[in-house]
């Protein structure tokens, strides 16, 4: 309140020289100041890095072992010990990251596409179509995600693609709900009314005004869903519904194997367990950080 009675109303406030930034850029700046989100990002970076460069990082072949060296405890040569077939556990965890990453990303992308489409149609069109789509969504939401995934794998048979489909289907209704909800509230938003009063078409309202504003909630949900997807994949593996090829290094399957030998080689449980926790927490922290930095209510 520097402009007191002394300055007339016509005095123009000097324009700041800094560049203007949109809400996305603004969110990025806020994200960079969010410590937990950065920790999450670091976890994800490690996870992705390991997944990409597993063949170069690992010292051993994930499928080569020796029956003479089974259940060897951790040592300088084998940091996480050797499993029941004498394979290097750390190497297998590194290769397992590839499966988790691919299955997680693909299933969330597919789920996001299906759920996003359903949500956009329901929230954008409304009326009877909305009611029908949402009741179907309710049916899927009524079944717990992992149970739905188990059912789908049991139905379609074991395999990586089946796991992807299962996790995608478990996630899609959540995305549909979120997008439809935010579209519905945005439909009544005053800036949408304003665009409508100017003469904007329905498509324009949806694409230019409602979707860009509904996207933030979806981004947060997708990030958090990546964490659940990784856990779901591991969960399926743990329950014996993992990849059919027993040689495939998959975290959940490795966890099951290690529980069988829990008394003889308790250390085997740590490497896959920690890997699951780090990657899941990483996505969770990032998701929470994104929610805070993207939420327009924190800044107007």
């Amino acid at each position, binding site marked *: 309140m520097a402009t007191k009675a002394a300055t007339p109303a016509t005095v123009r406030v000097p*324009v700041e020289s800094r560049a203007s930034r949109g809400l996305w850029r603004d969110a990025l700046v806020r994200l960079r100041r969010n410590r937990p989100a950065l920790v999450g990002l670091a976890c994800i970076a490690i996870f992705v890095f390991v997944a990409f460069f597993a063949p170069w990082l690992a010292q051993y072949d994930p499928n080569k072992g020796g029956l003479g060296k089974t259940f060897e405890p951790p040592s300088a040569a084998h940091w996480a010990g050797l499993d029941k077939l004498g394979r290097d556990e750390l190497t297998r965890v590194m290769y397992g990251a590839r499966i988790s990453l691919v299955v997680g990303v693909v299933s969330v992308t597919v789920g996001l596409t299906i759920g996003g489409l359903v949500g956009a149609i329901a929230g954008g069109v409304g009326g009877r179509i909305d009611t029908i789509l949402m009741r179907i969504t309710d049916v899927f939401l009524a079944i717990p995600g992992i149970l739905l995934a188990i059912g789908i794998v049991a139905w379609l048979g074991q395999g990586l693609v089946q796991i992807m489909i299962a996790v995608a289907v478990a996630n899609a209704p959540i995305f549909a709900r979120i997008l439809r909800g935010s579209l519905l509230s945005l439909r009544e938003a005053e*800036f949408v009314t304003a665009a409508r009063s*100017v*003469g904007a078409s329905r498509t324009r309202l949806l694409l230019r005004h409602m979707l860009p*504003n509904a996207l933030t909630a979806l981004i947060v949900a997708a990030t958090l869903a990546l964490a659940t997807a990784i856990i779901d994949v591991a969960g399926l593996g743990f329950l014996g519904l993992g990849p059919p090829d027993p040689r495939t290094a998959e975290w959940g399957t490795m966890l099951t194997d290690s529980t069988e030998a829990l008394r003889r080689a308790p250390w085997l449980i740590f490497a896959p367990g920690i890997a699951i926790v780090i990657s899941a927490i990483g996505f969770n922290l990032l998701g929470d950080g994104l929610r805070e930095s993207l939420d327009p209510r924190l800044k107007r």
Partner: protein
Amino acid sequence: MSGMMDVRSTTATGPTSAPPPKAAPAQVGQSLLRVDDLRVWFPITEGLIFERHIGDVRAVDGIDFEIRRGETLGLVGESGCGKSTTGRAIVRLYKPTTGSITFDGVDLAPLEGAALRRMRARMQMIFQDPYASLNPRMNVAGIVGEPLDIHSVGTKAERNERVRDLLATVGLNPDFAVRYPHEFSGGQRQRIGVARALALNPDLIVADEPISALDVSIQAQIINLLQRLQGEFGLTYLFIAHDLSVVRHISDRIAVMYLGRIVEVAPSRELNREPVHPYTVALLSAIPIPDPVVESRRRRIILKGDVPSPAAPPPGCRFHTRCWLRDRLGDPERCSTEEPVLRTMATGHDVACHFAEEVAGSAEQVQAVGRGAPTAPPAGSVSPSLGPDGTPRRDLGALPATPPVPPSAPPSVPSPGV
């Protein structure tokens, strides 16, 4: 502030002491917008799967008015009376249930699709909440330029140039075009909203409580901006507000709404000088008068009870459940049985009250407007002299001879022993 409004209304209505001419003020043009028997009802439904229609919220229930080219019609009433719905029905954000909205000779009510879109270019809206009415993900150039984009006006370069012009017109730096709404203050955002409304050179602007969400210091700036733009571009305004004190400074004529109906329409000056509907009198009595002596002697009319539900409006006159005049007249039956129509009184007011004549000269009216009786003052008392701006001076001599009894004074009761 009052001087600002008087510039127009003095030329329009002539000397204050004489009864106002019934004819339209000279400089305003022909009718731009005519609303006839407009009703906007929102259905109330029940049931999860099969929706049953169980009633209607009669937000707007049969109103008629007219806005002439170049004038400002103020539309006032408390929240929920249907004034915003009226504004939104006019720009066809709501489809009217019945009635017609004739804009420049075209009935808007049945229009759809491309024809409606074409008409929408000629009437624009300014919204109440400057925070909610701008898309946070679009920059100012996108927001202000959107009407041009939708109606494919000019090339992209021309549109950008127009946006810069518009920003300058509303008192913003044209370089702000690349910025986003969250980088502005409330007043600046409202200016962006005004610039958007101006983009297509509309004939009519419906301003839906454009200043209610702003700081008092900013309110005056926006009012002044709107008045300047009206002069520059020959705009016609429908100015919606819940605060009569705001509306009377910008409006040529004022329509007062209550529960979905218009109860009184009059030139702004007349309405403030001589309100004839009991509801208008009550509204005016709530506005403080900037004179401590007069103010201390005024008594606000506190309406009893709440506004009835617009889903089940009371029979007869909608205001009868809360009317102070009806109480004073001893509850005439007509009020609760016969719905008053909007009729034109000798003073040029349009009013919907069976007993509007009783209001004229009443103590309530005099106190509400804070001045002497409009008719010839009783001999011997000081006549209301005119101030330099032509308004009657609000001085002591103009008050009624018997001041109201202060509420604290106990009534004299004979002692029981005597």
